Structure formats: structure tokens, C-alpha cells
């Protein structure tokens, strides 16, 4: 039997591989033929952004992800700048009590008068008027439309339009964050009136705006191309870059490879563990900016009653060496923080109680509260209950996993038995919303308005809010609600600072570090300012310019490495990923690596 087979094999070897080799060679040749260009350098003709996800819709009020692309097209009455200041865009000025734009009514309500900048037209030439302001409020409060959030709009009773450039918004109650009410822009009345906005695909996929760019093309699954508008209201010299291309690249490694190959020029929200790798890419700088978000350990008093004891919470805080975590695991990229409001906010309080690393003090606190390790198993007990709990955190992010393990070890040293449990992104949201956890390592991305009520008021536990510490402190709750009803900036600051001091006293959670935002940009890009809030980095895109001389004007902090770094430590292999770095709008994007390893 074997003889003819062997012989037959010779014949086979002669024909088939030759054919397939020829075809293969032809295919490869054809494919590699033509100009084998290595990407295109950024220019004022075209800037390419490697973006980590495809938007659901470009309607700013409907979208559940960041509004980076939208903010190039649809402008708000205001925006927030790189220092979180509210600055006017379509509004002539930001209304305040001082300039007569805000009046409190005797019935407890409030009137805010928005004056529009004259001469602004929608991209189709129709003038922008106060009727668009009124339409926007009415549309969002219309139950047939499903915007992402009705926050603030639900407190508006009506809108008056005394003239085409003036809109008076009547609030039912005093609403302190009123300045940001129209940060997402206006819905064009002449396009959307009488229509089902949820299904208005023409608008939702290519919204009519007043911004420096319009949507030239949205190729599903691939890219969105923006093109400058000819008569931008800030002057025909703006915007300086003719086209911006947003490529959808969900895989973090692919985004970085595109940067390296020159196929993408900007990568927003770079994962921390890519910082060194991308900093070394020629022509690219990494812009660093403290974001308005903080990583912390939530201590659920309802689910794990020992956390209801102040001494236990303070002991946890003293037992954690946050400086060590920041220096080693975080590679010095993120600064240690002491509270929910970050130093860049106007409401930040510096004079609060702090909890320096002090394990001896942590042990003393637990001793005095009656928690003793009678059993000798390393975990303290009191009244038959062990000081043992589960710390949950999101799976898939090496940095978080490392931090969780460090916390576990540090807390063990003061007599707490911590079990770390990793949970996938969507599930963890459901867990905390239901309050089904002992402790959780996670972050909140805070609104540009420094509201704390949602997170700390006694009556704002889920589903009413996000007080998942289940902290119940009457004096704090009173101060928080007072701060929401105070429009005067100085008085509101005083109230919010009092609240921060009270929160620090109560130690309902353990703040760890601020979330630093990393954005990779071309070294030749001028006027890039960055942004710590949901507003995103494109808020001043009209000013962006590629410097033809190639030197650029990188902002302070760009590409600098921190001084401290212990040998032998790093940021871990897997990406920190969007859920840490991205700003909380859509936790869902797959991080680095394959979503389904092993499948094809």
C-alpha cells in the first residue's frame, strides 16, 4: 500500500504547491503594490483621531458616551475650559446674580436670563434664536423623547422669549448648577419640531450645529469625518484644521500601533500603562492633566455593619499607604487625593482632616473600639463578628487588580481579613446599584459642577442617588441641600467646603488618587489645552493648529515623567482601560486585548 502512496505524493508535490504559491504571491504582490506609505503626517489638511468607540448617536442630548465628536459640531451656550471654568460660547455672557442674569423669585423659584450672541446662524443659514432655547427645553421635557438625562430640565417650569436673542428660563426652585444647563447645546427647532427625535436619523447621525465643523461622512463601524464650515462665527480664520477624521479603534493596542505607524495622530484617554510606550513614539507627546475624577474605596455601612463604626472607617483610612500605591503601581502618574472634590475645582477645601498612613494608629483605633484578635487568626473580632469583608472591583484592569491586592495586604496588617473579588464592568454597576457589596474599589467622575448631594446626602441612596456608602448624617445632608439651593458663588463655596470638612471627619470612604487624563497628541499641534471634565479635549478645537515648523507648543506637563519610581515596579501589563481613564459615560467599551480570548 505504501508504495503507490509515496509515489503519488511526489506527483502531488509537483503541482499543487506550485499553483498555490503562485496565487499567493500574486495576491500579496497586488496587495503590497502601489505606494507603501507609512501613514500621513498630521497637517492642517487632515488630523486623524484614533477613537476607542463608535458613538451611538451624535445627538448630544441622546448619546450615552462622551461628546468629543459632537462638541466639534454642536456648541453649547457655554462650555467648561481646561480649568473647569464655565465660559460663554453661544451665550453673550454667563448669567450671574451680579450681571442681573439670575433673579430669585419670592415664590422660591429662580429666573435665569440667557442672552445669545448676535449674528450666529445654524450651518444651514437659519439664524439661531431664543426660540431654539425654548424648543430644547420643551423637547427634553416631552415624555415622547428619551434623552440620556433630564437633569435640571425637570425643574424648569417654562421659558419666555421676549426677543429673538433673549430666553428667560423659569425654574420651579433655586438650582445652583444652572450655568451648565445648556452645555450640551441647543436642538434646532426648524429641523426637529413635531418629529420623533429618537428616530430622527438624519439629525442624530449628522446633527445641525453652529460649531466649527460639520459631519461630512459617518461610515458605520469605520469612521466619522468632520469638515470645517466655511463661515464659522468666530471668524473665517477658524477652524485652522480643514478635516478631522475619527477612526473607531476599539482595541487599545491597535490604537497605539496606529499612532506608531502614523495612521492616527491623536489618541484621547490613553491608558496609563501605555504612557511610557507612547511617550517614546517620535512626533507624539502625551498631554497629562488631572481629571475631575477620583478612585476610592467605598465602605458599604448597610451591607457590612462594622463600617457603620467611625473608628473602623478611620482605621481603614489610616491603614492604607496611598503614597506607596501612587509611587509604585501608578508609576507616579496620579496624585494622592483626600476627597471627592479635586484641587482644580473652585469649591475645593484644603483644610480638611487627613488620614496619613499610620498602621499603629489604625490598630489603636480598632483596639479602643473593641475589635481584638482573640482567635489569633490575624483577623479581629467583636461580639462574635470577624472583621472580614469582600472588596469588589472591576475585572480586566491590571492596575486596579494590583491596587486591590495591595489594599488587601495593607489591611491585613492591621487585622482585617479582606477577600478581593473581580467583577465584570456591567455586572459591577448592577451590584453597587443594588447595594450588594461590602467594599468597592472604583471611581466617580464628577460633574463640572461640584455637587456632592447625589453622593453623600442621607436620602440619596440608590435608587435615589449614588450614596452607596449608605452614610446617614443629618448635619451633612442639611449643608448639602443648602449648597444646591445657593446660587451665590462665595456662599456656595463656603457650604461645599463645610460639607467636605464634615465628610472628611466622617470618613465614609477612602479616597485614593485623582484620575489623571492622558491624551496622545502630535508634537506639532498648537493650542491644545485638554479638559478635565466630560466636555472633552475638543472644546477649543477651532484654535487647534498644526505648526508647519514642526516645533509645536505643548502645554505644561506634557510628556514629563514623575521623578519617583521604584525599581522593579511597573504599571502592569493590561491597560488601565477606558473604565478608569474614560470619563464614566459609557463603561462598556472593551479594554485592551481580546474580548473573547481564544475565539476567532
Amino acid at each position: 500500500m505504501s508504495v503507490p502512496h509515496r509515489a503519488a505524493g511526489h506527483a502531488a508535490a509537483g503541482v499543487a504547491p506550485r499553483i498555490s504559491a503562485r496565487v499567493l504571491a500574486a495576491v500579496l504582490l497586488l496587495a503590497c503594490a502601489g505606494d507603501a506609505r507609512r501613514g500621513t503626517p498630521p497637517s492642517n489638511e487632515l488630523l486623524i483621531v484614533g477613537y476607542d468607540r463608535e458613538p451611538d448617536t451624535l445627538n448630544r442630548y441622546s448619546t450615552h458616551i462622551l461628546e468629543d465628536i459632537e462638541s466639534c459640531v454642536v456648541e453649547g451656550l457655554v462650555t467648561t475650559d481646561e480649568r473647569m471654568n464655565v465660559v460663554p460660547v453661544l451665550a453673550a455672557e454667563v448669567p450671574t446674580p451680579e450681571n442681573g442674569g439670575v433673579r430669585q423669585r419670592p415664590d422660591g423659584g429662580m429666573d435665569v436670563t440667557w442672552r445669545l450672541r448676535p449674528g450666529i446662524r445654524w450651518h444651514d443659514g437659519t439664524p439661531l434664536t431664543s426660540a431654539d432655547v425654548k424648543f430644547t427645553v420643551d423637547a427634553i421635557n416631552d415624555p415622547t423623547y428619551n434623552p440620556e438625562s433630564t437633569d435640571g430640565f425637570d425643574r424648569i417650569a417654562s421659558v419666555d422669549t421676549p426677543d429673538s436673542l433673549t430666553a428667560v428660563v423659569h425654574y420651579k426652585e433655586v438650582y445652583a448648577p444652572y450655568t451648565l444647563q445648556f452645555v450640551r447645546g441647543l436642538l434646532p427647532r426648524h429641523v426637529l419640531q413635531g418629529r420623533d427625535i429618537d428616530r430622527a436619523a438624519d439629525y442624530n447621525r449628522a446633527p445641525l450645529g453652529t460649531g466649527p465643523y460639520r459631519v461630512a461622512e459617518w461610515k458605520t463601524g469605520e469612521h466619522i469625518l468632520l469638515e470645517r464650515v466655511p463661515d464659522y462665527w468666530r471668524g473665517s480664520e477658524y477652524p485652522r484644521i480643514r478635516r478631522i477624521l475619527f477612526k473607531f479603534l476599539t482595541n487599545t493596542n491597535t490604537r497605539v500601533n496606529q499612532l506608531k505607524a502614523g495612521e492616527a495622530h491623536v489618541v484621547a484617554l490613553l491608558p496609563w500603562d501605555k504612557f511610557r510606550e507612547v511617550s517614546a513614539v517620535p512626533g507624539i507627546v502625551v498631554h497629562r492633566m488631572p481629571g475631575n475624577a477620583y478612585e476610592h474605596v467605598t465602605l458599604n455601612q448597610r451591607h457590612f455593619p462594622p463600617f457603620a463604626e467611625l473608628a473602623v472607617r478611620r482605621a481603614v483610612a489610616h491603614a492604607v499607604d496611598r503614597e506607596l500605591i501612587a509611587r509604585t503601581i501608578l508609576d507616579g502618574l496620579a496624585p494622592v487625593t483626600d476627597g471627592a472634590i479635586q484641587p482644580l475645582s473652585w469649591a475645593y477645601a484644603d483644610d480638611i482632616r487627613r488620614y496619613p498612613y499610620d498602621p499603629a494608629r489604625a490598630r489603636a483605633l480598632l483596639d479602643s473600639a473593641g475589635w481584638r484578635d482573640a482567635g489569633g487568626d490575624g483577623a479581629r473580632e467583636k461580639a462574635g463578628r470577624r472583621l472580614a469583608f469582600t472588596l469588589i472591583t472591576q475585572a480586566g484592569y491590571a492596575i486596579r487588580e494590583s491596587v486591590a491586592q495591595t489594599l488587601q495586604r495593607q489591611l491585613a496588617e492591621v487585622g482585617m481579613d479582606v477577600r478581593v473579588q473581580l467583577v465584570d464592568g456591567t455586572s459591577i454597576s448592577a451590584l453597587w446599584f443594588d447595594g450588594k457589596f461590602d467594599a468597592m474599589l472604583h471611581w466617580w467622575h464628577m460633574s463640572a459642577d461640584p455637587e456632592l448631594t447625589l453622593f453623600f446626602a442621607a436620602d440619596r441612596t440608590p435608587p435615589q442617588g449614588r450614596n452607596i456608602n449608605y452614610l446617614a448624617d443629618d448635619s451633612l445632608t442639611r449643608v448639602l441641600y443648602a449648597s444646591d439651593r445657593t446660587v451665590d458663588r462665595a456662599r456656595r463655596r463656603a457650604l461645599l467646603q463645610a460639607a467636605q470638612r464634615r465628610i472628611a471627619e466622617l470618613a465614609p470612604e477612602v479616597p485614593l488618587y485623582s484620575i489623571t487624563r492622558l491624551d496622545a497628541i502630535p508634537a506639532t499641534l498648537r493650542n491644545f489645552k485638554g479638559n478635565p471634565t466630560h466636555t472633552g479635549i475638543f472644546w477649543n478645537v477651532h484654535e487647534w493648529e498644526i505648526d508647519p515648523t514642526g516645533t509645536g507648543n505643548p502645554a505644561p506637563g506634557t510628556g514629563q515623567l514623575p521623578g519617583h519610581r521604584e525599581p522593579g515596579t511597573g504599571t502592569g501589563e493590561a491597560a488601565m482601560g477606558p473604565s478608569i481613564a474614560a470619563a464614566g459615560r459609557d463603561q462598556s467599551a472593551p479594554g485592551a486585548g481580546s474580548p473573547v480570548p481564544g475565539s476567532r
Partner: protein
Amino acid sequence: MFAFALRRLAQSLPLLLLVSLLVFALLHAAPGGPLSTYLENPNVRPQDVERLRRALGLDRPLHEQYLAWLRAFVIGDWGYSFSDGRPVAERIAERVPATLQLIGASFALALLAAVPAGVLAAARRRGAADRLTTLVGAAGTALPVFWLGLVLQLVFAVALGWLPSSGRETVGGGDLADRLRHLVLPAVVLAVAHAAGWTRDLRVSMRGALGERFIAAAAARGASRRAVVWRHALRVALPPFATVVLLDAALVASGAVVTESIFAWPGVGSLFTESLARRDYAVLMALLMCSAAAVVAANFVADVVHRALDPRLAR
């Protein structure tokens, strides 16, 4: 033949119904839902979550949701995406060409490699070709697709600059050569993954075929060696091999998930990944049903092909 087709169709309907029930139950049993991704955003208030839950129909009892879905699905109304509000059918349809293109190219490459390699390895057992294909086949099966994809990107796009690292075409410059250049890396990666397995499948089939008595008879009658292997043996070995290839095609049609993600390929796989992350039940249900239907259809086609190729079954 027609009766055969009808019988198979009748058998597959209850199966698809069962699949839809299981898939629906599993999707809803998974923790978190379409709304849980909104919870992190402080601007989405509790009343917003409740409002969105009602708008998406998620406040109704599960069996009601399922029956409503089933009724609509059967008459061709696949509903609207939870994510972007567009019709589900439209969202899926626009992804199909890219996936078919990727499958076509990668399967062509994989077949060009697997068929000669499998035949050669079987024809010269324990010869150099057999050892080589076994080794390469094992490596091809063992290499994770995401790793191979990233390595090829680094070599051919970053280091050499010969090929684009990802995407389907250069924006504004999508002529045929440009599209082919974009196709090479993802097609090769997917081809490697399949070719390795197929080579081994074909080798086993061929070994079986070459052991048949009619092969020895053909050789004894003086058929050339080439004819014995390529005409007589391969004809017997092909039907089971075709079944494997067709079933693989059905599976990949429902998404080359990792390959598409790494190469930013705008196919069904990347739609699936995105929809899964956003728990877009409407799109997921439709995709998974299409996938199940594709497997059923591929099985049917494989049977037909099997009958056509194998003279023994045709009788």
C-alpha cells in the same frame, strides 16, 4: 431533493425556537442590563434610568418581553437598536459585506494552503511534508489570534510600513489596491487559524481514503499516482472536509470577533462585541438568531454538498 429540503426545514424550526428562548433567557440572566452602563454617569438621575427602562420595555415581565419580541421577529420586525435607535436589520445588513469579504479572502487563502498541505501530508505519511505540516499546523492552532494579529501589525505596519495596520480602506482613497492592502493582514490572521485545523482534518480524511481498497484497485489498474491521489482519494476525502469548512464559515459569519476588533474591521463581529458591551438586547437577539440560522443553513448546505460530492449518498 425538495422533500429532503422541506424535511430539514421542518426539523430546524423547533430548534431555532428553542435557541431563541435560551438566548433570551441567558442574555437577561447575565448581571447588568442595557441601563447599568448609564449608572456611572452622575448626570443620569434615577428618574432618567426609570424612564429609559420604560422606554425600552424593560419594565415588563420577562415572558411578555420574549413573546413580544418573538411575534415581531417572526414577521420580520427586528425592532430598533437600544444603542442608537436605528432599525436592527439595517445595523446588521450594513455590516454583512465586510464580514463576507473577510471570510471570502481568508477562506480562499486557508484553502489554498490547507488542501495541498493536507493531501501532501497524507500522501507521504511521516515524510518531511507530513512532519512540517504537523508542526506548522500545531503552531497555527496554538497561536492566539489576538497575539498573531498584533505581531503582524507591529511587523508589517509599524516596522516595515508595507501595509496599513487596520481599517478597511484609506478614507477617500479606497481604490481596489488600497482595499486589498487593508485586507491582507486580517485575512492572513484568520486564514492561519483555519488552515491549521483544516490541514489536519483533510490529512485524516485523506489517510482514510487512501486506505480504501478501491484506491489500491485504481493503482493496480494503472492509474497514475497523481490521478490516484488527486482524483480518486481526494474525491472521497472532500465531502467530510467540505462539511467542516462550511460549518466554520457559518461560525465566522456570525463574527470573527477578535480579528475584527484588532483590525478595526467593520463587520458583524465588531457589531457583536459592541452590542454585547452595551447589552443592546435588540441587536444581540437578532445577531444570535442569525448566527443560529446560519449554522442550521450551513448544515443543510453541507448535507447537500455531501450528497453531490459523494456518489454513494446520491443514490
